[in-house]
């Protein structure tokens, strides 16, 4: 039996996104372990693991973020295939190799048809971590994206999420590293998934930075080669500080370029809509809008509600 679990921090999000996806993918005997979120996310996930570990016939546990919608109807069949290798500890829809920190997307990303849908600016959809080149699944990775984590019964029974991590940042990296340290493999398989999330991927970057440091300290020697002495740390610090300031300068340049692009279009739009002819025909457009609204009101929904 393949179980589904979710830490529900927003009931509405779960109802709109995760739940329909779970119902799309679940099998008749699937159990759904939906728990109200207890901060941090690792604590709720551990509750779900405890509950799942008590299920005798568990084949896999699918942990679904409330904002994640599974679009893959045959997910269970694909999961079963991937977990048929007993060395595989977890499966996901996205992940990466050569990861050096909680920003796993800075490594070599492996990802199937995983997209992000946002509502800002009239809404839109983009490929997840679209800035990275995506290697196609199936492939073994070092870290799985925590938006959708599919765990083997062994992982459910033996590994726990680290509840000491700051606000849960990097819980997926930490869990992945624990699994690999225990000799298990991680796989990204081809799964169609949609993340419904805002454009702002991380709300508080200062907290995220602290979490990054904490995880780097915890996994020092695993994420990067061990740093032996003070002189080696100095070289590493010098390069890191230079890279940081370059990254900030490049980010600022990119931001200016993007602003210029937006400004260009705004000027174009303003030039179009500030013409006398556009202003003169405003009543015509207002009339059309009213007509469209009226015709929409007259259309009955198909179910007659």
């Amino acid at each position, binding site marked *: 039996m393949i179980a589904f679990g979710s830490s529900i921090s927003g009931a509405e999000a779960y109802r709109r996104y995760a739940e329909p996806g779970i119902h799309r993918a679940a099998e008749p005997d699937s159990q759904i372990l939906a728990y109200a979120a207890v901060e941090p996310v690792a604590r709720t996930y551990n509750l779900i693991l405890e509950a799942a570990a008590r299920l005798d016939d568990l084949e896999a546990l699918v942990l679904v973020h409330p904002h994640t919608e599974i679009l893959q109807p045959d997910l269970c069949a694909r999961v079963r295939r991937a977990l048929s290798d007993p060395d595989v500890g977890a499966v996901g829809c996205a992940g990466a190799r050569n990861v050096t*920190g909680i*920003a796993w997307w*800075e490594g070599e990303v492996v990802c199937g048809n995983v997209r992000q849908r*946002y509502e*800002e*600016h*009239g809404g*839109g959809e983009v490929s997840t*971590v*679209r*800035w990275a080149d995506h290697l196609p699944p199936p492939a073994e990775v070092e870290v799985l994206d925590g938006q959708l984590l599919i765990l083997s019964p062994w992982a459910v029974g033996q590994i726990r999420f680290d509840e000491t991590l700051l606000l849960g940042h990097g819980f997926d990296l930490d869990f992945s590293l624990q699994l690999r340290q225990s000799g298990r493999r991680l796989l990204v398989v081809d799964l169609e998934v949609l993340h419904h999330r805002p*454009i*702002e*991927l991380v709300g508080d*970057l200062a907290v*995220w*930075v602290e979490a*990054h*440091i904490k995880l*780097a*300290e915890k996994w020092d020697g695993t994420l990067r080669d061990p740093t032996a002495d003070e002189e080696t*740390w*100095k070289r*590493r*610090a*010098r390069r*890191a*500080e*230079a*890279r*940081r*300031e*370059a*990254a*900030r*300068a*490049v*980010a600022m*340049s*990119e*931001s*200016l*370029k993007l*602003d*210029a*692009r*937006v*400004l*260009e*279009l705004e000027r*174009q*739009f303003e030039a*179009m*809509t500030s*013409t006398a002819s*556009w202003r*003169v*025909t405003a009543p*015509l*457009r207002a009339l059309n809008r009213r007509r469209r609204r009226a015709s929409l009101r007259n259309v009955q929904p198909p179910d007659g509600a």
Partner: protein
Amino acid sequence: MIAFASSITKPDVYARCAELGISRARQPDSEVYPMPSVGSIFKSYNAVLEHFAPRDDLEALVLVHQDAEIVDDDFCRIVRRRLAEPEVGVVGCVGAVGVRSIAWWEASVTCASFINRYDEHGGGDLPSFSWAWSDAPAYARMGEVETIDGFVMALSPWVVRNIRFDEDLGSFHGYDLDLCLQVREAGRKVMTADFRAIHHRQLNMVPDPEQWIDAHIRLADKWDGRMGIGTGAGTWRDRALRAEADTDAALLLAQMNSLESDARVNELDRALLQTSTSASWRLTAPLRRLRLSPSGRRRPELTPRRLSGGVAGADGP
């Protein structure tokens, strides 16, 4: 005599930017020395220094990037006034204090009287915070700084004769900070002054990040804590881990901004398409054809300086 010099790799850019500004700023007796580049900016500028060092009548040497345009007619008066203090070695219009690396803009910038003028996306201007003193924030002031931005820098005769750019540092990045550090180490001052310039450059400010990173490290190693360069809080381990985290945060922020911007572009594209395919737009097309729209790009007007009031500073205008 106030001399002007540039190291030129693109004569057309020099003609359009630096030459235009120099012709505006120079005085009848000024010598202008447009020198084709002889390699790195360090090497080229050293050649310029050698050229002017023997000149007894030199009051100042103004080094101007080929893409920098001085906008003040009274530039020479401003420079002369600033260099009248004998301990002043370098003068610029952009400067900062608390500088720890070649990324001087990461320090506390006290004066930034320039515009970054770009050509991409129809062109535009990005005025910095003290371009118009009337709108400048409380931290804007003129006076002593630790470094200036080298795109326009005026050097005292003492500097021209006694200091050289360090050619071991690379090809471009950090030449200005290193010169300022040498000047300050020699007991002279680096100052900002009330002149303004336009930097005609692309929006991509670090087109060669790897070279920039190398220059950053080389300069940090050279000064290694002296004059505050290469210092930071915590142990080397603390600094490494924090900087690595900050780097990933900067990259993430850039991606979020890019996503936000693309979403806005898509929104505007949709609005433009909706407008241009609407019945009323098509209906009024003949009217628009009658109207000749002026070509050319928009630029903000050059806001006049308000020299007489409203600006507080260490030794404000």
